């Protein structure tokens, strides 16, 4: 029973808390206290829970455990006078609105207090219940609004503080004004090391210029700059950086936000993966060389006569070894492309000469299949600056695919000079690609059903590599196709690049 009583009391207390507006009045004058009490009674709703204190000392004492909605205070208390009274109350409570009760002669003082954060003031001589209720309502609304803001801010602060990336806020002269825990952890700085220091100290001079020019406005939120930042000890650390300028409503720059993410581990894994892929591919090549040459020597008759059946089996074996070789090459390429390790060598080249070479390369195979390869060129010479070997690889993959999927008909290679860019396409009259498969053609290891026909089995990486290479040249690649109606792969290469 006792328990139940306690629970009921608690509920009652909570209810009271929520229903009634809790007011603390600091008023040294007995008559004024009586006046306020009377006026509060006249206010119809809400109901009040009023506590009166006659000295500042008592008031502050009470405030330590009192969490009410509004404080009324006279500026002149027996133990405190003027603005000081307001300041002392304010220092005790940040959140509760304070309404000052002033005498006529104190009005100037009261307005000053409002400027330094008091909610409002009431001149006691002019006091009436309407005024009181209005001031109270405003005070309570303001408190609610402030609580909401506080909660929202608290939410963002929690995100900011606990974020696994370093977030640094700088002012318009690029001095550090605020930062989160991760910043100190990532860069080994203590609090005193950062406040009002130049943000540029986090980077080497050259890197800092890069960071600032790579602002989020210019590159969008998804792109990141990978760069080295400096810890307090000047030890470099691999980070991914974004720099966003902050502006106020009229467009004046007020500062910026710098976000750093530690990518040391990612970099380490990338290097490890690269080394692994390149070692494996290297290690696989030696035994493959031996197998391939052994089989070739049997086929070439270096080791004596072979029967027709033996020849046939050896030829199939050789083809498979070559396919294995292509897979290794492609894996190496895709691994480099994905790691961003593939660097292009921009050298002047002539597309006309380049595609003629590609045509020559495929000519014997196409002739055997009865397929014509034709070139459509917008002029006799199409100059471009790019990586010749890589672009040959793009054409080789596309023409190779076209031959693979085309039983009869033709393959058209078209190059047109569009001024600002060069447009290339490889079109065939083959089996085409279904609408279902179309979105996935440039994905890795996508191999689509095809009629068993001549040509080598692919690796499923060719088109991903093409896409990678075209994108390295800052171009675009796409495919136009319908099932049974052939396929046309188009790519554009801009003449200007950044």
């Amino acid at each position: 029973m006792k328990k139940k009583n306690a629970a009921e009391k608690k509920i009652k207390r909570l209810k009271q808390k929520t229903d009634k507006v809790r007011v603390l009045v600091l008023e040294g004058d007995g008559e004024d206290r009586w006046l306020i009490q009377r006026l509060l009674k006249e206010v119809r709703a809400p109901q009040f829970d009023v506590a009166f204190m006659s000295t500042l000392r008592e008031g502050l004492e009470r405030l330590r455990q009192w969490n009410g909605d509004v404080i009324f205070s006279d500026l002149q208390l027996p133990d405190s006078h003027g603005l000081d009274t307001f300041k002392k109350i304010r220092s005790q409570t940040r959140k509760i609105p304070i309404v000052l009760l002033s005498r006529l002669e104190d009005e100037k003082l009261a307005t000053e207090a409002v400027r330094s954060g008091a909610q409002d003031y009431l001149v006691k001589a002019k006091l009436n219940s309407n005024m009181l209720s209005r001031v109270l309502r405003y005070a309570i609304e303001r408190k609610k609004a402030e609580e909401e803001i506080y909660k929202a801010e608290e939410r963002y602060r929690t995100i900011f503080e606990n974020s696994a990336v370093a977030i640094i806020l700088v002012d318009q002269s690029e001095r550090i004004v605020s930062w989160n825990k991760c910043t100190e952890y990532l860069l080994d700085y203590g609090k005193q090391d950062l406040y009002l220091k130049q943000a540029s100290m986090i980077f080497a001079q050259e890197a800092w210029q890069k960071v600032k020019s790579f602002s989020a406005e210019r590159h969008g939120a998804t792109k990141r700059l990978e760069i080295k930042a400096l810890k307090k000890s000047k030890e470099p650390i691999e980070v991914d950086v974004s720099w966003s300028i902050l502006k106020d409503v009229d467009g004046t720059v007020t500062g910026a936000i710098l976000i750093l993410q530690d990518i040391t581990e990612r970099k380490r894994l990338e290097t490890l993966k690269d080394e692994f892929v390149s070692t494996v591919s290297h290690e696989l090549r030696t035994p493959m060389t031996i197998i391939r040459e052994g089989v070739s020597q049997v086929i070439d008759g270096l080791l004596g006569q072979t029967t027709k059946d033996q020849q046939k089996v050896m030829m199939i074996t050789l083809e498979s070894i070559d396919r294995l070789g292509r897979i290794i090459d492609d894996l190496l390429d895709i691994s480099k492309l994905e790691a961003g390790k593939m660097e292009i060598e921009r050298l002047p080249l002539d597309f006309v000469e380049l595609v003629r070479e590609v045509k020559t390369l495929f000519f014997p195979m196409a002739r055997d299949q009865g397929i014509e390869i034709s070139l459509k060129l917008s002029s006799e010479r199409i100059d471009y600056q790019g990586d010749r070997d890589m672009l040959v690889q793009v054409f080789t993959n596309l023409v190779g695919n076209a031959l693979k999927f085309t039983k009869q008909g033709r393959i058209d290679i078209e190059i047109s000079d569009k001024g600002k860019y060069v447009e290339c396409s490889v079109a065939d009259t083959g089996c085409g690609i279904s609408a279902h498969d179309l979105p996935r053609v440039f994905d890795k290891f996508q191999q689509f059903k095809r009629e068993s026909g001549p040509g080598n089995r692919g690796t499923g990486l060719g088109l991903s590599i093409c896409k990678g290479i075209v994108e390295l040249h800052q171009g675009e690649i796409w495919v136009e196709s319908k099932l049974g109606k052939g396929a046309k792969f188009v790519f554009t290469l801009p003449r200007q690049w950044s």
Partner: protein
Amino acid sequence: MSAKKKTILIIDDEPHIQTMVATRLQANDFKVITALDGKEGLEKVKKERPDLILLDIMMPEMDGYDFLRELKKISGVNLMPIIMFTAKVRREDIDKAIYLGAVDYVIKPFTSTVLLDKIRQFLKS
């Protein structure tokens, strides 16, 4: 056969590769000598003065690059063509060898026609 057989030195740390390449080259009328690393290769160059060298890059003791550097110190061999014979496919690896004096490269696994064509091309000139 009036012309003297041309001698090719294969420097490769993999004996089976040596066997395979030697068989192919001998079948095409070349004389073949072999070395298992750069050091041994240098000895053979001094002693036998081959007409052309097929050179691997990754080898113990002395690798292909060091071999090329050391070879420059031997007099009278500056016209000896060296074809890199390697499983390294990165452009910078090849470029480095060319910079150090190699004339061309063949990537492993190789096609016999490509290998023979390149050898003949550099023996002619």
